[in-house]
């Protein structure tokens, strides 16, 4: 079945830079949250952004998803500078964000939640004049997308509050995956979840990457980062301290760079990741 919601633009070949941040700076009064921070997201990868509290990862992500306008520096999408004034601007260019606090409407059903704010109307006069929703089409497409993402849920018309926490976050992640054209940003998507439920969400992240959408994953949870990330960007004092991979560095080495105990620009000898 072809769906008009999942018509993706042709994705660039693996390895080309999709999203770039250059020298992004953001100050709040005397506090410099971001101090000339950089970021590169390549096509087909999961890039994890880690850092201690106050290292600037949240602010950097807010700049990338349009929630914060930087004082200096620029953001480039496919090599072209973009200026986001609000999350809506970023979304219009195909950047979807998943927030840590399960951003769903609990009493509404799964299909409604997936299409919330982007409802499909009937074609023809019923839709244009009477604004009639095409509930069947939304249910069908929601089911189709969930099958594509290999994410198993109860009936697509059951209320989200009947789902487990992991399934609810799955709905939020799936919504981003369905509508994102360029990339998906996930801000601590597993923070509120248990071990098994986190596993479901991590699987979903891998599926999204394998379908071609690059993912930026912000997380505190090192095991999760090492489980799904292709590359890891380590933030420290408002800057990019290092970029590594789960193969090059161990968790404790990454934590050492995060806390300033080791320097990121010196290659640390890898001993299994």
């Amino acid at each position: 079945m072809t769906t008009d919601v999942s018509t993706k633009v042709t994705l660039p070949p693996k390895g080309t830079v999709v999203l770039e941040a250059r020298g992004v700076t953001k100050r709040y009064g005397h506090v410099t949250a971001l101090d000339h921070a950089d970021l590169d997201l390549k096509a087909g990868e999961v890039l994890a952004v880690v850092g201690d509290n106050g290292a600037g990862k949240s602010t950097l992500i807010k700049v990338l998803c349009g929630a914060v306008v930087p004082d200096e520096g620029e953001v480039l999408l496919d090599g072209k500078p973009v200026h986001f004034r609000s999350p809506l601007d970023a979304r219009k260019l195909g950047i979807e964000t998943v927030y840590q606090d399960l951003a769903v409407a609990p009493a509404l059903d799964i299909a409604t939640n997936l299409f919330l704010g982007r409802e499909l109307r009937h074609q023809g006069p019923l839709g244009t004049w009477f604004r009639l929703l095409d509930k069947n089409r939304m249910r069908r497409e929601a089911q189709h997308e969930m099958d594509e993402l290999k994410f198993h849920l109860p009936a697509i018309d059951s209320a989200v509050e009947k789902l487990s926490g992991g399934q609810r976050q799955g709905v939020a992640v799936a919504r981003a995956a369905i509508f994102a054209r360029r990339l998906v940003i996930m801000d601590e998507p597993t923070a509120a979840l248990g071990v098994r439920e986190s596993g479901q969400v991590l699987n979903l992240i891998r599926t999204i990457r394998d379908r071609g959408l690059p993912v930026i994953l912000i997380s505190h949870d090192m095991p999760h980062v090492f489980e799904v990330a292709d590359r890891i960007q380590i933030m420290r004092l408002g800057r990019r301290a290092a970029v590594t991979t789960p193969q090059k560095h161990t968790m404790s080495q990454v934590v050492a760079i995060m806390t300033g105990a080791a320097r990121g620009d010196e290659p640390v000898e890898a001993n299994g990741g």
Partner: protein
Amino acid sequence: MSSSLAATKRSTNVLGRLIATPTFGPLIVLIVFCAVFSLATKTFFATGNLSLVVQQSVIVGTLAIGQTMIILTAGIDLANGGIAVLGTILAGRLVVEQQNPVLSLLFALLICTSFGLTAGLLVSRLMLPPFIVTLGLLGIVTAITRLVAQGGAFPVTDDLLSWTGNAFAVGDTSITYGMIVMFVLYVLVWYLLTQTAWGRHVYAIGNNREAARLVGIPVQARLLSVYTFAGLLYGIGAWLALGRIPNADPNALQSANLDSITAVVIGGTSLFGGRGSLWGTLIGTLIVAVLRNGLTLTGIDPLWQDLVTGILVISAVALDQFSRKKQR
């Protein structure tokens, strides 16, 4: 679990789904009350009396439509009775002073709508609690009503203003145009709430306002539209009130506001917002009307009506609270 399995699971349990329907409980309560009063009195089940019950419920029933929309967004309206009374006084006085009835009615509708708009602006732009906004508006509207009425009431002799009270007969049953207006409004708002994106947004805002904002729903604009539309409905409620009792009295409709909240709550809509149904509100309105009518017919002191209504409201809210706790 595959979708086909889930689908079969759904279809086999028709009874379960019926009971899970939010209007099921209120409907049972309505049927039980009707049965009890039919057995207790000879007069309740007469067609003339049933028609009267519905006529008595058109004003509260219409105010309750606006109340339902507002409560679905996790708000509340304490001014709807006051706004409707102002509408009756404005239209009544203008017509008594020989103004054009059509323009007088339109003016009253416009003023009622603009009070809804005001409430909407204060709630959506200034983020003030709806409880406080509408409580304040109630005071303002009541004062304006007294200023306009100047201690008097205005008898309605105009055909247009009293048109909603005109009746025609279908068999033995007398049907007023007011009933039809109310029913059309229910169908219209039911359609908006359940069949359009606007309605989905209203539910989503009441459910999880932050999530609604994050998915890109224009929360402020939706809230503004809900309160403004509710204001228009209160204006229509004023017109229905003039048809029901053709005398614009500043002291009328004292209990209408609380009755509209009662109807919404008994009808199964959650005071916490985001869940409920408009048909439940219509059933809730009829429950209150049947109760008042039936208790009057059985000859019980009217003060018991308020007592029983009070118990019903508290039970309905307790049930809602309890069912929410169970889901957590």
